[in-house]
């Protein structure tokens, strides 16, 4: 997957925009995006539920006073996804945390040039 360049926001100081229309700044954003779409398509939650969960994360970020310039958008997307899969009983927060540590561990113990895999 190609890592697309960051959009240039200098053209419009008040209204962030990107001239060429980059879709994802980093690969994980595309993964998180696809996960939400597929889970919804497969009926684990409706798209309306998803939109509500995402809107709630965005609103919470605004209440915390975070600058919402679009750049942390997928951070909120991921947080909403984690919350919704937990609420729907698809993946428990503790299991996600443990799995995340397992991946970090796998990276630490995999030599350069070898595919990273969980034990």
């Amino acid at each position, binding site marked *: 997957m*190609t890592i697309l360049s960051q*959009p240039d*926001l200098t053209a419009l100081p*008040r*209204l*962030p*925009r*990107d001239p060429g*229309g*980059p*879709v*994802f700044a*980093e690969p*994980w954003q*595309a*993964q*998180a*995006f*696809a*996960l939400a*779409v*597929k*889970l919804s*398509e497969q009926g*684990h939650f409706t*798209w309306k539920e998803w*939109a509500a*969960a*995402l*809107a709630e994360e*965005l609103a919470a970020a*605004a209440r915390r006073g975070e600058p*919402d*310039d*679009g*750049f942390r*958008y997928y*951070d909120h997307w*991921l*947080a909403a*996804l*984690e*919350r919704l*899969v937990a*609420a729907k009983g*698809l*993946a428990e*927060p503790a299991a*996600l*945390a443990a*799995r*995340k540590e397992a991946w*970090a561990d796998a*990276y*630490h*113990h*995999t*030599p350069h040039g070898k595919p*990273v895999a*969980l034990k």
Partner: protein
Amino acid sequence: MPAPPVELATSPGPGPFASRDIIATTMAEHDHDHAHQAVPSDLTLRVKALESLLVEKGLVDPAALDALIETYEHKVGPRNGARVVARAWVDPTFKQRLLAEGGSAIRELGYGGAQGENLVVVENTPGVHNLVVCTLCSCYPWSVLGLPPVWYKSAPYRSRAVIDPRGVLREFGLDLPESVEVRVWDSTAELRYLVLPERPGGTENLDEEALAALVTRDAMVGVAKVTAS
């Protein structure tokens, strides 16, 4: 009450994973000093954890995920929408169907909606300019425009497009005379909007494909006009 976020998703404390910047530094050092693989960012690890758990449980198909990412990243994009617009410019009966029943007219061209949303096409005329926004989050006609650009998802655009559409349009370089009525369409999860821009003058001799090449994403969101060159 919504479930609390994943423990590791809450505000990062001090330590090696305190921020993405620090992780980037750590990664660079590891690349030079150690034999093991660079540990990716906290966000990447969280997505990997989610994906691997859900795949393991059979809740998502990894091949379907990859296919979807490929679709939105490279294949789908504003070009589909541009073809819809160009067809409407050259085929008055298609245009009629498009304005009456956007979703089914667009499916005639083979572009379907991923979420089964209703798609409404709104037409720009010399007297009316349409602007699309999603004030709640970022609902967007993906099937024809690909993924939304960063500015579309930003709070300034989401709020100001409704409060001060003319001001927003001016920032995009579009200064509309007061005589032109500006209509703002607020998208929802079930209802998405696509702007049918005005066909620019001087394009009478262009064929459908050449016309499609003129149509930009911004014009189909309503923050720009289509120009002949």
